[in-house]
Structure formats: C-alpha cells, structure tokens
C-alpha cells in the first residue's frame, strides 16, 4: 500500500514570528536565562578592566575602585548579580536533569539534586569569601 502524500501546493504554512519568545511565559523565562550569560560576561569584562588598572599601579587601581562606588555602577552590579543568580539557579536545575545521582540503587529526585547544588554553591561562595579576606591586604 503506497502512502498518499498531501498536495504540497495546498498546504498552509504558518510563519513563526521573530517575537515568539514574548508569546509564552516559559519562552520568556528561557530568553532571560540565555541573556543572563551577557551580564555574566559584562561583569567579567569590568573585572578585567579593574585588573588592567591594577597592572598600571596602585593609584590607577584605587581610582577605578572609587569609580565603582558610583550609583550607576552599583545599579549595574545589582542587575548583574540578579542575572548571575538566575543563571546559577537555572544551571543547577538543568544539571539535575542531566545527572542521575544515586544512593545505592535509588535515583535522587531532581529537586533534591538541585538543592544539593545550591548547598555546594553556598559553601564555595563562603570559601572564596574567606580566602579573599585572608589573602587581601
């Protein structure tokens, strides 16, 4: 029995709008997650600029640090932090989908794997903070 193919000339093709990501909440949150990488990169570029100023001497370094205390920069870092945290949390959720962690034979549930990641993140953050405070002068 041969397959009957539909008449291709009469098929109606619906176009997907370029604003598809605004049509649904889940799509919009997806786009926010993707854009979080932009703010992560922007922050790291700022950090790199600060390190460059450090290579130009302690005065250049403290001048740059002074600039960062302005309201504009504080706002930038606040936005960057929110996006970075959104990246972290969604990354941990994604990791829970990929990883299949087991206790003996039983799979650990995804919400718990995510929570374990958040716990690890908190510990790592504290370690970095303590190291910074201990090593800086």
């Amino acid at each position, binding site marked *: 029995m041969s397959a009957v193919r539909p008449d291709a000339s009469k098929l109606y093709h619906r176009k997907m709008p370029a604003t598809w990501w605004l049509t649904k909440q889940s799509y919009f949150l997806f786009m926010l997650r*993707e854009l979080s990488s932009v703010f*992560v990169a922007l922050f790291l570029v700022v950090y790199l600029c600060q390190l460059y100023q450090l290579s130009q001497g302690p005065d250049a370094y403290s001048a740059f640090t*002074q600039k960062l205390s302005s309201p504009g*920069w504080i706002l930038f870092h606040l936005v960057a932090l929110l996006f970075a945290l959104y990246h*972290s949390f969604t990354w941990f959720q994604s990791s829970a989908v990929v990883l299949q962690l087991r206790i003996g034979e039983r799979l650990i549930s995804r919400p718990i794997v995510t929570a374990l*990641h958040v716990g690890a993140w908190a510990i*790592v953050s504290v370690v970095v903070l303590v190291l910074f*405070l201990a090593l800086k002068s």
Partner: protein
Amino acid sequence: MATEKTIEPLWWGLFSAGGVVAAFLVPIHIILVGFAVPLGWTTDTGALYRLWWVKLYLFVLIVLPLYHWAHRFYFTLNDTGLKAINKLLAVLCYGGAIVGTFVTAWILLKI
C-alpha cells in the same frame, strides 16, 4: 548519509565548563568586586592578585564563562531571527571569546 565532522562538541564542552564556573563562582565575585570593596565593607590593595595561583584561578574564572557567553549568545541571536548572518555572528561570538582569552592572559601576566 555522510557524517559531517563537526567540532560542535568543542564549543559545547567549553560552554558547559564555563556555565559551571559561572554558576558556582560569579555571584560571590560580583559581591566582592561590585559591592564589598567599592562600598567600603572591606579594603583591597590588589596585592593578592600577584600570587601565581590566584592568577591561574582568575584566568579560569574569566575565560571559561566567556566561551559560555559566546555559545549561548550565538544561539540566541540565531533564535531571534538573525540566522541569515550566522557565519558573521559565529566569528563575533567565538572570536570574541578567543580574543578575550588572550587579553585576559596578557593582563594577568602584566600584574
């Protein structure tokens, strides 16, 4: 069907590594660089950045998330209708990350 040899796994591997680094380390560094020192919660002369292993750590912290951004942003630009110029976008994104790699190394060595 012939297999197209793709190096996509390279970019995805870097994207993945960068995502892990960014997820675990970037928030605390934003707090340190963006708030703690500028607002005077603590002081920092920058001396610790001269330690070689701190430089190595910073290299990983800065460079890997750049590849994470490059891969993710490239796909996002494609998904928002710029697919027609995707070769140019690839050069700008992945090229940007590669340039960033060298610039980061150069600056860290200067300190």
